[in-house]
């Protein structure tokens, strides 16, 4: 099954939009105005529709982000297991606050909604990779591997 076929979803209107935007994010890290304009032109949609869709979804960034996106789960099960300590450790390590990107453009830090790893709390995703059972001390080593 090719990705093209998947995206077209039987030729139904709109079905290719989200997969198409995700593909752009995979290639370019985020959706610039130019990228969204190109997607809009191809889909025969106005730019504002594409922006409206993209900006709705947390995993379709519409502003520049770092090469690696760190998403620390901030929901209850992780919060109970000291997700705040983990976030604090990342802030200290990278010198940025949630929502910010490091000056070298390497990392963006975000607090995410539940990432479904509550049995390994506290957990975070770096890009697509899951890190569970974190401690404040384990952060530096993980970040160094990027």
């Amino acid at each position, binding site marked *: 099954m090719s990705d093209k076929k998947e995206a077209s979803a039987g030729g139904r209107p709109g079905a290719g939009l989200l997969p198409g935007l995700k593909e752009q994010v995979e290639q370019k890290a985020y959706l610039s105005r130019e990228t969204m304009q190109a997607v809009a032109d191809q*889909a025969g949609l106005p730019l504002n529709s594409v922006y409206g869709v993209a900006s709705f979804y947390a995993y379709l960034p519409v502003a520049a982000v770092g090469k690696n996106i760190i998403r620390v789960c901030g929901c209850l099960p992780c919060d109970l297991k000291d997700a705040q300590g983990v976030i604090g450790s990342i802030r200290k390590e990278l010198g940025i606050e949630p929502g910010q990107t490091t000056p070298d453009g390497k990392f963006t830090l975000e607090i995410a909604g539940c990432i479904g790893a*509550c049995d390994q709390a506290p957990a975070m995703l770096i890009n697509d990779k899951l890190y569970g059972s974190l401690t404040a001390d384990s952060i530096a080593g993980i970040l160094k591997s990027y």
Partner: protein
Amino acid sequence: MAEKRIVLSNCGKIDPRNIESYLTAGGFSAYQKARKMKPKAIVEEVKKSGLTGRGGAGFSCGLKWEMAMNARGREKYLICNADEGEVGAFKDKYIISHDPFGLIEGMLIAGLATGARTAFIYLRGEYHALDVLLKSAIEQAHSKGYLKDMDIRVFEGAGAYVCGEESALMNSIEGQRGESRYKPPYPPQRGLWDTPTIINNVETLMNIPRIINNGSAWFSAMGTKRSKGTKVFSVSGDVARPGVYEMEMGSSLQELIVALAGAKDVKSVQIGGATGNIIPGHMIDTPLSHETFLGSGAVMVFNSTRDIIDIVHNDIRFLNEESCGKCTPCREGTEVMLEIFGRLLAGDGRERDMVTLEELARTMAAASLCGLGQAAAVPVLDSLKYFYNEYIDRIDQSQFLRSYLGGELVKTTEGVR
């Protein structure tokens, strides 16, 4: 009563990357059986089994299928809802990563029963790591010739909790913002691209091959009056062994969190995620079923060091962030709730806050468009009911702080109000 692994029977026993091991374990036998049955007979069997939706709403699966079967439409769609976004839920991830073929078989049977020939698995973006496994499983089923009657595609979400709500999910596939739709029409009448659509949770579909193989009588012998079969739970929080457990419907909360998950000190439990019921530890004997508490089966345990106001604040912060913003009660209601909980935690609560919270919660429950706003009221109302004293404590502290600070705080917050 120990675990009863029906849905999870293959998990850990088969190789999720190899269809042969699933076939050796008797895989696709239910599909072969169903192929010899009339669609009506399959629907009848599922209806008689009493199987209900496992995503949280608990609607009869058989009735849903019957509506879809009877719906006129040139094309019908089946959607497997794998957008498990509920806080504290990870059972569908566990199921897919251990038994993707079982899910495919359930979907194929759903297709035979309802006439849907195109299916989507809506996989949440956070589970991108499962994408490869799932696509490989589909590919293998295809090469074995099982996908002659149905085309199954994986559609990945992009990080939006509300897309687990079925109408928002359909909007998302259609390339729109994941906002909820007005109902009716319900999806089996008019769903994806206005055609009849069946939307079932991963766990619901996993039950289907078992019901076809063993019969509805076998299935309905398990559970309670309105909740048949088993339920897969995700247990997290203050327990020794967080994880996925399957138990017969109607099993007690105590068995789940103490005997299985190893909880020692239970102040409170939230059942069903961020929008779930919050019950005090002394109600631990409660059976888990649609009649009592269940939801999606996410169970979070809180010990005596936990602050209930803090917990509800976290719930509301999440729901406020994830509200799609289409309807006013949810969009504005979660905003005001968040402000109130923020003040309670910051030591600036007022006695009137509790009245406001209750009024807001009741309004949101009654007037919100979808389950997110409707159920956002649940943890708030439950905490007011069972942990009223913690609110009082916060307000007393706030009064003390205000008098201690000599009105400084009063001035700054009065301006806000």
